[in-house]
């Protein structure tokens, strides 16, 4: 029994390791092909990550990515591809900032209100895709792509000063107005290096909740079962349509939270410069982490490292787009190496079973002979 677990663990680790090594080699090849020193930019990035202020940036970014990736992972477990996390995240951040700026309640209630609005907005936006999928059979991939684009337009319109937006004096930026101090989430100060957003810890706590709900509750079992085989789940009494809508709503609600570490910890307002594309990065991270809460944590950390440690590469005469190329290569390397490892695992298992069967068969014949 112990031995099988070890095998499984080894195979599980082989995928990511193989992926990272091949992504690293491929990146070096790209750098070599363009006549750039293949090792130096990566060494510089690692050196950058040694500074404490960069580390704080990386941890904060990890929290945001972790939430976005959890949102994507919930969909994945259900065999749903929520590409719309980006739209849900932006719309939720914007509307919760509007509500947060409009009211001024005592501390915890204010924060709670912002959190609830963000979750509700994200769930509403993903719910549209969920209803379309469950009721009308519209592929969630296409509908969420459309909803992302619609969210972009909707936000641009809502942010106009004549609607909900505020234009700060002497600036071209548009914001939603500032959230009063009671709505700021307490942060962990790291001295001169900045502070770690308090919401980052909420994000990691959600990872535990995610693990518990999926693996230790009936709902989680139903969700995984429907994801593995819709018809089999339906035959055992699971309402697949309801599951589609529920998981889409939960995914959207978590996506709505993804903007909050930044909103509650740093900007305290939604402006034109609020980060975009977080949802798409979340897809990469969920894939890399194999939808497992711990795996997602380490991949979020890795991607956050690539993002933040590459920012200053330009100063040394290297293009910082190297990090984007690495991200793309990592995704490809990850999915391909997982597939290869999976095939190897299956082949190994077949061999093993074959051997055991052969051995068992031999024993049986011996018994028969003895009898």
């Amino acid at each position: 029994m112990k031995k099988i677990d070890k095998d499984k663990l080894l195979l599980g680790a082989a995928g990511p390791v193989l992926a990272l090594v091949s992504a690293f080699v491929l990146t070096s090849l790209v750098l070599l092909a363009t006549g750039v020193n293949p090792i130096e930019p990566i060494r510089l990035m690692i050196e950058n990550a040694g500074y404490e202020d960069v580390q704080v940036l990386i941890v904060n970014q990890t929290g945001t990515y972790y939430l976005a990736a959890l949102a994507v992972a919930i969909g994945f477990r259900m065999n749903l591809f929520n590409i719309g996390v980006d739209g849900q995240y932006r719309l939720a951040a914007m509307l919760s900032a509007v509500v947060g700026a409009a009211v001024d309640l005592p501390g915890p209630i204010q924060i709670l209100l912002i959190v609830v609005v963000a979750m509700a907005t994200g769930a509403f936006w993903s719910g549209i895709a969920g209803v379309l999928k469950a009721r009308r059979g519209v592929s969630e991939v296409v509908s969420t792509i459309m909803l992302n684009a619609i969210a972009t337009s909707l936000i641009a319109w809502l942010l106009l000063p004549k609607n909900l937006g505020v234009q700060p004096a002497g600036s071209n930026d548009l914001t939603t107005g500032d959230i009063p101090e009671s709505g700021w989430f307490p942060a962990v100060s790291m001295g001169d290096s900045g502070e770690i957003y308090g919401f980052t810890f909420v994000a990691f706590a959600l990872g535990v909740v995610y693990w518990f709900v999926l693996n230790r509750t009936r709902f989680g079992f139903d969700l995984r079962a429907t994801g593995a085989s819709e018809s089999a789940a339906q035959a055992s009494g699971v309402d697949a349509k309801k599951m589609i809508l529920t998981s889409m709503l939960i995914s959207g609600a978590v996506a709505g939270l993804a903007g909050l570490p930044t909103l509650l910890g740093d900007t305290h307002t939604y402006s034109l410069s609020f980060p975009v594309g977080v949802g798409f990065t979340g897809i990469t991270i969920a894939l890399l982490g194999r939808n497992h809460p711990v795996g997602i944590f380490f991949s979020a950390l890795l991607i956050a490292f690539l993002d933040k440690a590459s920012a200053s590469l330009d100063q040394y005469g290297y293009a910082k787009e190297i990090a984007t190329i690495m991200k793309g290569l990592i995704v490809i390397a990850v999915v391909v190496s997982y597939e290869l490892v999976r095939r190897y695992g299956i082949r190994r298992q077949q061999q093993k079973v074959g051997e055991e069967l052969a051995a068992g068969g031999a024993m049986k014949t011996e018994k028969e002979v003895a009898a």
Partner: protein
Amino acid sequence: MSTTTVSATSQAPKAGGGRKKLSLPWILLIVAGALALVSLVRVISGANDLTSVGQVSGALQLAVPIGLAGLGGLWAERAGVVNIGLEGMMILGTWFGAWAGYQWGPWNGVLMGVVGGALGGLLHAIITVTFNVNHIVSGVAVNILAVGMTQYLSNYTFAEAEGGSSKQSPRIDPITDITIPGLSDWMSDLQAKHWFLVSDIAGVIGGLVTELSLLTIVAVLLIPASIWVLWRTSFGLRLRSCGENPVAAESLGVNVYKYKYIAVVISGGLAGLGGAFLAIVSTGIYQEGQTGGRGYIGLAAMIFGNWMPGGMALGAGLFGFTDSLKLRGGAENVHAMLLLVGILLVLALAWQLYKKKYVQAGVAAVFAALLFLWYALTDQVPSQFVDAAPYVTTLLVLALSAQRLRMPKADGLPYRKGQGK
């Protein structure tokens, strides 16, 4: 013989069974009816730009890249590979097209754009066909990689070229435009008279013969060419059989992997051509982020068109038309479109009443009333809503007709050689 049988069955939707293939007279009648409707709206609202020569020619130019991406999606999905990497392949097309275009002339640029897109397609084929990875995941990866690669390479090419920077290329020589001299002017004059229907037809014809890029002609011809190859040759039948039932195809001796590879590489090439068109014809320059999600829109146009080239072209035309409306003085034109959509909803209402579907009729009535109210109370539509219009349209079309759409049966499903044994 066998080709025609397959095409007939693939067009007939499963549900109902009473729907027949549209014949040419019907199509012409529908086109004429639509034109008359637009004309009516133009006369009522006074938005005379709705069918002007410039509007139609602009719509055509904006529709071409979307249509090429959609056609690329169609080729891949007909062979059973979902291609969400169209956007990335288009980006590769813009970059390679501009890179070769500014150095060795526009037509070499077009060629390199196709090659660049096809390389993206090849990567997608390797990941999805050989390694059997989820098609959407692979597409997302291709998109990320294309963005990173082009941005990175720009630093070492365009940034060092005269007149370029790390975000845009030097100017590319244009491809020849054709204007049919007498006809174009005559049509413009006729259109300027704003007569009911006559001016609209003149505007459409004028738009099709004024400043028409040679590459546009090539792109438009690719649609009948694709129909012919996919539905009238044995090559096309085999390719489509890989998208419908690869195991059956394999049992008949079709090399499924080969056909999937060919289809996805052609798909990438078409998306790359769309990208090259954007860089060389639409703007004459490569700019970072130039594709602006057109690959996704092309995919939407293809689904809108029920995985058929004709329908896809119609979808692309619709997207091009709304884009063009927005670019040309926008708000008023789009305001007129409210009226058009309202009238269409009233027609739908009548149809549902005739079919005795009262709930649907009620919904249509409410929306039509809201649209007319909106039309009457405002005199322009916010530009942000105009941006969203094509996406909302796609979503609505999908919501209303997704159950009638029929995608290739094995589209997006994993297939491994020897599965049929």
